[in-house]
């Protein structure tokens, strides 16, 4: 047997299973450095000023609305009996969930050695941090009397005030605080070597000083790299855990209550898949225009990588679709009149259009990504990704608010109408998000240069003798 086969020399065609190139057109490490740094070092483009003045205006209006709400009281919002949680918590969950895709892409895909994610991970992490900042706007202000926000923290005091540690709302405080801390650390620590590159290339004294301080005096010694790599793996591991725990805790806010439509054991999973789904949509929404606006990024953020994000989105959206069906099935199968009533009302009541919009977007639009032609047509992906996020906002609203509109007592059933302050605060968070992202593009390297360079062909020793 072996004799006969050894005569035939079979050269297997490996091209089919080869990894797609990380950087197109055989670009070398020096080109990568120049391309990424040129975004920060070059002249500020006109569109950037236009974009930041629009987003800054929205952010300022949002800030003014928050101030008005603090001065006047929560009555300026549309939230009222029975919907005491409405746009505030909807937006909180919408933003904090969106953050999860960034952690998923940069931590879970890093640990599973999915190299394609290297090009998009920095921007995805930035999205995570900024989305948590937007989410963080709400919990503090929605308590109404914001000057009592310290009641949430275990501050030793002589009033006898102490938080109730068995409340999911307090778990939220800790979950979101730790999520913001860990993801900011992950983002910043990953950026230190790249900030040092900007420091070395800086031409003005101010830039040299700012990037010098920000990079903490990084020199890239072998010892520093050793600790750095060790730290990065640990942080990726911790962040991967956060991907699961934060949404689980946020989901517990609803799931541990007795409200029909909230009280379900599938909620942690439901929130997590929805989170990664909407986050993938945001990553696509941000990166596709970025790639078009900075042509040097075309070789770095390749269509193949964006296609993979779209595939991830499709997978998560299918999980979300499964949960929709499961929830409806459980409501029917439980035989519980209140549970059945809540879901019947969700699709027939005064607020039915929220649920109908949510389902009709989330069950159909992402399924278009089964087609390669759709996934590879970037302008189309951009539009569909925005629609996916619209669908996810409606989903969060459907879960949080429409469940409250219809609980046990028919006399307490009601409806919800957002006030103008609600709407402007929500657009304000969008403004904050985009303002931060625009600052990010302009002032820090949007791509992990050191990670990219380390995996380019020919950048590692060939290990000739002795290995």
């Amino acid at each position, binding site marked *: 047997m072996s004799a006969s086969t050894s005569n035939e020399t079979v050269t297997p065609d490996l091209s089919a299973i080869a990894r797609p190139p990380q950087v197109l057109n055989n670009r070398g490490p020096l080109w990568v450095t120049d391309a990424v740094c040129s975004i920060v070092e070059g002249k500020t483009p006109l569109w950037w000023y236009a974009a930041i003045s629009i987003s800054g205006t929205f952010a300022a209006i949002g800030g003014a609305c928050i101030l008005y709400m603090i001065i006047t009281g929560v009555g300026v919002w549309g939230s009222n009996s029975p919907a005491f949680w409405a746009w505030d918590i909807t937006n909180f969950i919408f933003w904090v969930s969106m953050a999860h895709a960034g952690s998923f892409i940069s931590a879970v895909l890093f640990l599973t050695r999915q190299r394609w994610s290297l090009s998009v991970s920095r921007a995805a992490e930035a999205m995570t941090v900024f989305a948590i900042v937007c989410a963080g706007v709400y919990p503090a202000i929605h308590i109404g009397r914001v000057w009592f926000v310290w009641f949430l923290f275990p501050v030793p005091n002589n009033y006898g005030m102490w938080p109730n540690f068995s409340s999911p709302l307090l778990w939220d405080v800790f979950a979101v605080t730790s999520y913001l801390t860990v993801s900011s650390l992950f983002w910043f620590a990953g950026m230190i070597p790249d900030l040092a590159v900007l420091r*070395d290339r800086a031409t003005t004294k101010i830039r040299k000083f700012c990037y010098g301080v920000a990079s903490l005096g990084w020199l890239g010694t072998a010892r520093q790299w050793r600790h750095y790599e060790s730290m990065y793996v640990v942080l990726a591991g911790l962040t991967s855990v956060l991907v699961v725990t934060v949404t689980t805790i946020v989901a517990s806010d609803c799931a541990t209550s007795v409200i029909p439509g909230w009280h379900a054991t599938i909620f942690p999973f439901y929130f997590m898949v929805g989170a990664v789904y909407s986050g993938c949509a945001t990553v696509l929404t941000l990166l596709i225009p970025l790639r078009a606006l900075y042509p040097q990024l075309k070789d770095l953020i390749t269509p193949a990588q964006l296609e993979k994000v779209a595939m991830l989105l499709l997978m998560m959206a299918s999980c979300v679709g499964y949960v929709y069906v499961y929830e409806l099935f459980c409501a029917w199968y439980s035989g519980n009149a209140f549970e059945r009533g809540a879901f019947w009302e969700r699709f027939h009541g005064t607020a039915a259009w929220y649920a109908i919009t949510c389902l009709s977007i989330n069950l159909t639009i992402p399924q278009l990504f089964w087609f390669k032609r759709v996934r590879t047509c970037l302008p189309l992906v951009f539009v569909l990704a925005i629609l996916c996020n619209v669908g996810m906002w409606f989903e969060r609203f459907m879960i949080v608010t429409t469940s409250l509109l219809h609980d046990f007592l028919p006399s307490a059933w009601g409806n919800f109408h957002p006030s103008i302050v609600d709407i402007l605060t929500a657009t304000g968070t969008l403004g904050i998000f985009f303002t931060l992202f625009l600052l990010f593009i302009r002032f820090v390297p949007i791509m992990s240069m*050191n990670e990219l360079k380390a995996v380019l062909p020919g950048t590692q020793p060939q290990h000739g003798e002795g290995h």
Partner: protein
Amino acid sequence: MSRHLPVAGSLAEPLHAVGARFDTPDALIAAVRSIRAAGYNAVDCYTPYPIHGLAEELKAPKSLISFLVLGGAVTAIALALTMQLVPSSLIYPLVVGGKPVNFSGLPQYVPITVALTLMLGALAAVKGMILLGGMPRLNHPMLAWDLFAKDASRGFFLAVSARDPNFTLEKVTELLETSGAGDITAIHLEPSDDE
């Protein structure tokens, strides 16, 4: 001085190290091997991205970061459980929502414990990376060398410290030259601004 090396920093100040630049990671690793074989241990390399196997060649010790993270995480668990159990179960036991306040109520303390463990673990990792890596610092003798300060993101640099007990300028320069180094430079300290 037998050879005329380019000088960085101030000649009036003591010599800090001899630096050299290499074009490829392979050349750098080969040079590290020959220099260590000649008995110099105070060698450091500066690279724009992590080079596989370089730390092993330099006999750098294993990173202690995982132990620091373990320390941070264990501290966080102890802290979180104390913070929650002492007031909620011992000092002011108060049943809310039917959740027990004795030890059978432990599961309700898990979420906050997990969140704090992750947070302090991550803080320990980043702090460890910064402090073990000799950071933060605003300046470094190597930055007196203009070529290095401008081009650290392009080349692969090596420096043999003058504090090495075997250090002689001629010998080290010769070793570096035979291993194909470019831009060999004597790096002196810069005069301090203090006085």
